[in-house]
């Protein structure tokens, strides 16, 4: 096996008296779909916020694609190829689907403010090239009919898909999905599962997924890490984690 794309070693993050992430370590392989599960408030999203640079942990090391990213600013980490979606949709509600996706390509578009003023030439050429790239994502995620709509007006399930599209537009080397199917009905969940599998198999993008839908997690994930109260309680294949006594007690409580 080649070197992991991400190693997360001994990270501890606390806010005043609360330790949100307590000495957690894991790594993610080059083509792996790694899932993080745990009860509410276990620290799953905090792990994502450490990865994308929103939170700065007190201790530990995070290496992404061979570089240390701990303490780097979010836009630097994004430029290195780490993309994410959010649990509560964080799209730019006033912009169209296309503009949201084009924003995903922000770091790949290289012209500056002066070329933007002039438009003709550099800026126009770049806009046309990247528009074509974004259309591939529109096609991939079946968003054709929504292209020109402001995302704030779209149904929830479609907004989730647009957010996934915006992350994909960044051409990520690692994709973080924070509850991709939360609040979705059966049909939307199945659609999203299909897209996630397509991303792994066709685009070869490794992923870390936080999700509460256990059926989905057990079906899709290569490996799973379970956390509870900030502590890592089990890591392994779906079958291992499912039968782990610590995981069972975290979800269902101790035997009476």
């Amino acid at each position, binding site marked *: 096996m080649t070197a992991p794309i991400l190693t997360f070693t001994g990270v501890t993050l606390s806010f005043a008296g609360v330790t949100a992430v307590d000495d957690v370590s894991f790594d993610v392989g080059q083509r792996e779909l790694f899932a993080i599960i745990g009860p509410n408030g276990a620290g799953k999203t905090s792990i994502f916020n450490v990865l994308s640079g929103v939170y700065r942990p007190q201790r530990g090391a995070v290496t992404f694609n061979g570089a240390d990213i701990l303490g780097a600013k979010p*836009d630097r980490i994004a430029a290195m190829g780490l993309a994410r979606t959010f649990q509560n949709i964080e*799209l730019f509600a006033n912009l169209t689907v296309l*503009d949201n996706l084009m924003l995903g390509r922000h*770091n790949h578009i290289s*012209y500056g*403010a002066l070329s933007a003023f002039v*438009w003709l030439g550099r800026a126009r050429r770049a806009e046309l090239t990247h528009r074509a790239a974004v259309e591939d994502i529109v096609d991939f995620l079946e968003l054709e009919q929504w292209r020109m709509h402001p995302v704030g007006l779209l149904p929830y399930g479609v907004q989730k898909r647009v957010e996934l599209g915006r992350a994909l537009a960044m051409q990520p080397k690692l994709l973080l999905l924070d509850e991709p199917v939360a609040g979705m009905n059966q049909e939307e969940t199945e659609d999203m599962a299909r897209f996630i599998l397509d991303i792994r198999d066709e685009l070869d993008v490794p992923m870390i997924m936080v999700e509460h839908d256990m059926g989905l997690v057990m079906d899709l994930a290569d490996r799973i890490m379970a956390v509870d109260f900030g502590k890592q309680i089990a890591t392994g294949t779906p079958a291992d984690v499912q039968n782990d006594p610590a995981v069972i007690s975290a979800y269902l409580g101790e035997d009476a």
Partner: protein
Amino acid sequence: MTAPVRQRRPRQLSGRPGLYTSYAQQLRLLNTRPKLLTVSAIVLLAFVLPWLVADETLSLLGVAMAASIGAIGLNIVTGYAGQVSLGHAFFLAIGAYTASAVSGAPDDDTIGFGVTNVLVWLLAAGLVAAVFGVLVAPLATRLRGLYLAIVTLGLVFLGEHIFAEWQALTGGAGVGRPGPVPVLFGVELNSSGDVLTSDQKLYLLMLASLVVFGLLARNLARSKVGRAFAAIRDRDIAAEVIGVNLTRYKVIAFAVSSFYAGCAGALVYTITGFIEPSSFNLLLSVQYIAMVLIGGVATISGSIMGAFFITLLPALTRQLPTVAPFISEDASSPLNVFQVETVLYGLLIIGFLIFEPRGLYGIWIRIRNYWKAWPFSY
């Protein structure tokens, strides 16, 4: 076997004139026939107007056009990038004083370098204001919303004090100094010649500037930079996580905005011909906020509509005493036209925020959509 012939896609399909056959067609600024026709008609009309209307009206329209440039500037930082700034009057002042210092007569009481070329002092006014914008921008990376508004408000008060005291530059409170001296390609714009009067020449200068500045701003708005501004306005954390450098884009927003303000200040006082230091007060900033809110937030055409509305409003209120005799024209009596004006700014801002948050631009869009679907109601 022959190589496949690559067929060029037809530029337009017969019978479907509105159908785009390439992204380039869709990305064009005037991408529909009605847009192309109306915009060309308006610009054409504006260029022949000097020969159709009285000089007095022209100078009022010229001020409105110069103010439009300032309103576009405020809309870039506040409407597009979402950074509320009450300090616009300060940047207008910087531009006005830079331009008049660069172009002023060297032997006058106030500082003057005698470089009267419009292109030189306009660029200087914009650049000096932009430098101040860049100095202020770091505040925006630390503060947001009301806090930023209050800090930028502080700029106006600082400016008012400095401009009142720095007599060498401004002539001091109650004295003032002459505005910028415009000479373009050897033609003195502020004196009447054989062909054109000074008002006609200045009007054409304002119109040409507005077309250029408006086009540049529109280009910026539809580019990567404009999208990054909108991202920062809508959700700054998400913007950062997808790779937008917040500090850099806030600095760009303030720099561009104050560049526009500086140029607008220089142009407005070219027409009025006189700068009184106490005119750069909070009311001026509020007028520009009113232009943006009434015209339409985050639209270029809205900024222009708002600027015309606010600039032409006094011309209407001055007529009030003939209709309503209880309103006086005398500034010292209890209910006068100036008070009515100030009250109107407030009422209009409140009214538009409640009833038409998209401003005059929103009203225009609704009229357009109505006629698009006519004779059906939707």
